[in-house]
């Protein structure tokens, strides 16, 4: 549905987006990750046709956003960053306006508004003015605007920003449900959201894609993937560390003692290696092991490693 090729945007001498290429198909939810200022919002603004790219092409549902902007925009629902809405209107008036702008009239319009209101739980504030709404409701009002025409493509710029945990949960479920039939791109800072919602994630740093894969694949890039953590009673940290270091597939061992307990982590030589767990179990035969678990890998660690300049390489 969405195809981005060699997308570039420069602001003066600064390259905000640098030769970005990716595509999103129907039924896919693509998570956009990256530090602030990495070019996430700029990319989304180009896909929705708000700012023109310096170079490259974007097609949405077969329509080129530069050559046939109206055809492409009809397919897109867009929630901009900070969820702007006309503050002088009521929620009902605002959604009616959005539906009309999408070419809905009469009964079709009221049905579209009704549907969006139900999906975003807005009944209780329907006749309230937008500037009196709490942040959560304002966000949902703008979200409702983006789905009012049941678009094939949804572009959501930080859809859960500033919401409380319950509201975050609701919005995530909504995105996941809609992701079954639509092509969705959403940006976020919250890594747990990637696991909860995305079928694929892209990490962007300084305008470039630095990682692209399913949440699982990304996690496997972590040093923690396949690492084994164990808690042992009645041994010193030094002995535990020494014994574990002798394992064939171990790369690094850390061990800390608290009281008479030692917590140790063994990192594998190749991330995601399943052999390590077996080796550790064999090696600790006869120890007083209280707990032993294999780590899945940590997204936040992957994120930090590939987006922090000083720890790179």
């Amino acid at each position, binding site marked *: 549905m969405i195809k981005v090729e060699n997308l570039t945007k420069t602001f003066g001498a600064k390259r905000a987006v640098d030769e970005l290429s990716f595509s999103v198909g129907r039924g896919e939810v693509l998570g956009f990750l990256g530090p602030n200022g990495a070019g996430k919002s700029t990319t989304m*603004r180009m896909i929705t046709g708000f700012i023109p790219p310096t170079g490259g092409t974007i097609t949405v549902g077969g329509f080129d956003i530069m050559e046939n902007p109206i055809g492409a*925009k009809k397919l897109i629902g*867009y929630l*901009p960053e900070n969820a*702007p*809405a*006309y503050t*002088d209107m009521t929620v009902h008036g605002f959604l009616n306006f959005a539906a*009309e*702008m999408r070419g809905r009239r009469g009964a079709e319009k009221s049905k579209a508004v009704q549907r969006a209101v139900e999906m975003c739980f807005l009944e209780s504030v329907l006749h309230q003015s937008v500037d009196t709404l709490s942040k959560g409701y304002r966000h949902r009002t703008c979200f409702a605007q983006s789905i009012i025409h049941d678009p094939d493509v949804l572009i959501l710029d930080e859809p859960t920003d500033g919401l409380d945990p319950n509201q975050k949960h609701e919005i995530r479920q909504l995105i996941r449900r809609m992701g079954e039939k639509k092509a969705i791109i959403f940006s976020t800072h919250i890594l747990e959201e990637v696991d909860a919602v995305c079928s694929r994630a892209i990490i962007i740093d300084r305008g470039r894609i630095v990682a692209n894969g399913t949440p699982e694949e990304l996690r496997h890039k972590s040093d923690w993937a396949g690492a084994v953590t164990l808690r042992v009673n009645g041994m010193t940290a030094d002995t535990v560390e020494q014994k574990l270091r002798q394992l064939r597939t171990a790369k690094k061992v850390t061990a800390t003692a608290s009281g008479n307990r030692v917590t140790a982590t063994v990192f594998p030589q190749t991330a995601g290696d399943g052999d390590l767990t077996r080796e550790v179990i064999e090696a600790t035969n006869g120890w007083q092991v209280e707990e032993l678990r294999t780590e899945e890998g940590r997204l936040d660690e992957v994120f930090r490693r590939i987006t922090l300049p000083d720890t790179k390489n």
Partner: protein
Amino acid sequence: MNPLGNIKTICKRELLAYFTSPVAYVFIVIFLLLNGFFTFMVGGFFERGEASLTNSFFMWHPWFYLFLVPAVGMRLWADERRVGTLELLLTMPIAPWEAIVGKFVASWLFLGLALGLTFPVVLTVNHLGSPDNGVIFAAYVGSWLMAGAYLAVSCITSAITRSQVVSFIISVVACLFLILAGFPPVINLLQNLTHNWQWLVSTITSFSVITHFDGFEKGVLDSRDVIFFLSVIGFSLFTTSVILRTHRTS
């Protein structure tokens, strides 16, 4: 989708926005009070004993509009950019010019409504004497066109900045130029300065709204004057679209 439908939708929203905020009511009340005061107290409507509105009523309009129209136009794009709704509006499936025209027409209709509410002065002059209502009608048309020209200039200044105050000040200055270019003392000064280079003076004065409003006030619907106002509007709206596009690219 049809452009007319889009323009209508935007226009309707914009008009509603005026009336849900106090702007509309404050504007109308002040506009009518100023008109009443200047027509009857300063313009000496009764003392003149003329069955005409030209010298007592319409002559003030270029000056009223100087301050009031930029106040109506300043929020058009500045607010849209400040709040971020511009991003929403321009990612809808519409052409940018449809949004520009829709918003302009809404404000222009609003100014037309305020102008129309001065009708008691027409009733008064008709009650007291028998004026030429054709002249009055022509002057109303001219006044509305002039308001449109000021408004279109305010559209440009509103698109330039996020701040409504800055937009207001710049458009007052720009509109002041449109007036002063045809203001008799200024024309005299220009003639002295340029040693009566008539072509230069007349080029400058031809940009003045006063020169072109003059004909309407006398009851003359000259196509050249109509074209002048319409072309100021057209040019300004085009400039607005260029400015909005430039903002998005840089």
